[in-house]
């Protein structure tokens, strides 16, 4: 792989290569970065549909909404917010050459992500005992569809994190390898997006 830049050394933006290959868009953005942000933007609309369906069900089934455990999900929200902090801390560790900080932050990220999923599983268990299931009512369907898809995104993030963590243990990340920094940042963007979605779910589903 041809390297044009390293951290701390800026190469002039160049969208043309000897082989005629273009991998930087006309906006001076790496195609992979542009693609990631377009993907995340499309995900916003995906979750908007699910939140919209939930709002309709929520107004028509207020008694089932009363069964949601606000204190429990508040703790889960703090944990997910903290997990986002561990990701930026990991990237900060990589950029500053602090491998221990990188690995510890990723380990903490794994722990907090798993803790969040544990909270969600516990909540599902309690709600199903209360009679709120995916087939019990439109509220149940909308609630489980929205939080279930979010949980699936968290699980995908955790699977990605395991790969990222393994790479960090194998010393594959280095501030001297810009592509490795970007690899970690790609994961970070995904995880933060999952956090942003939860911010809205927490407000709309649980608090309103």
């Amino acid at each position, binding site marked *: *792989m*041809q*390297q*044009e*830049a*390293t*951290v*701390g050394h*800026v*190469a*002039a*933006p*160049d969208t043309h*290569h000897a082989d005629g*290959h273009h991998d*930087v868009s006309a*906006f*001076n*953005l*790496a195609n*992979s*970065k542009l693609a990631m*942000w377009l993907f995340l*933007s499309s995900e*916003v*609309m995906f979750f*908007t549909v699910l*939140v*919209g369906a939930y*709002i*309709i069900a929520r*107004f028509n089934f207020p008694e089932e909404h009363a069964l949601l455990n606000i204190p429990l999900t*508040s703790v889960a929200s*703090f944990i997910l917010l*903290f997990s*986002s*902090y561990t990701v*930026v801390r990991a990237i*900060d560790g990589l*950029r*500053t050459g602090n491998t221990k900080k990188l690995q510890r932050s990723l380990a903490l990220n794994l722990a907090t992500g798993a803790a969040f999923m544990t909270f969600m599983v516990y909540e599902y268990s309690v709600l199903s005992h209360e009679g709120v299931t995916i087939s019990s009512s439109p509220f149940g369907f909308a609630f489980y569809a929205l939080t279930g898809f979010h949980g699936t995104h968290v699980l995908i993030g955790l699977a990605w994190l395991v790969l990222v963590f393994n790479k960090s243990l194998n010393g594959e990340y280095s501030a001297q390898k*810009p*592509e490795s*920094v*970007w*690899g970690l*940042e790609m994961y*970070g*963007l995904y995880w*933060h997006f999952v*956090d*942003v979605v939860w*911010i*809205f779910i*927490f*407000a*709309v589903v*649980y*608090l*309103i």
Partner: protein
Amino acid sequence: MSNETVPAAANGAHTADQAHSHASTYFLVLVALSVLTLVEVLVSHITASGVRIFLLVAIALLKAYLVAQYYMHLKYENRLLFIIFAIPIVAATIILVLIGPMSALK
């Protein structure tokens, strides 16, 4: 390994002036997000539904803004990325604000 060849400014690798630690900023953002979450929980006890919904949506938008700007680094990125991400967020907010009152109609 990626086959991409990209300049540092385009792929997100930070330049010399950005290579220093942002740890204190990240921690301050975490504190702000935690305080806002606490405020959200307190606001959820407001009985006037219009005020409650307005405040909760406003706080959620502020929290999302903080995460996007500082944790997702939109603050330091190409303006185009901010626009790409802001368009669906604005569209989503409009759609959901319209769905709210409509769903209350029977």
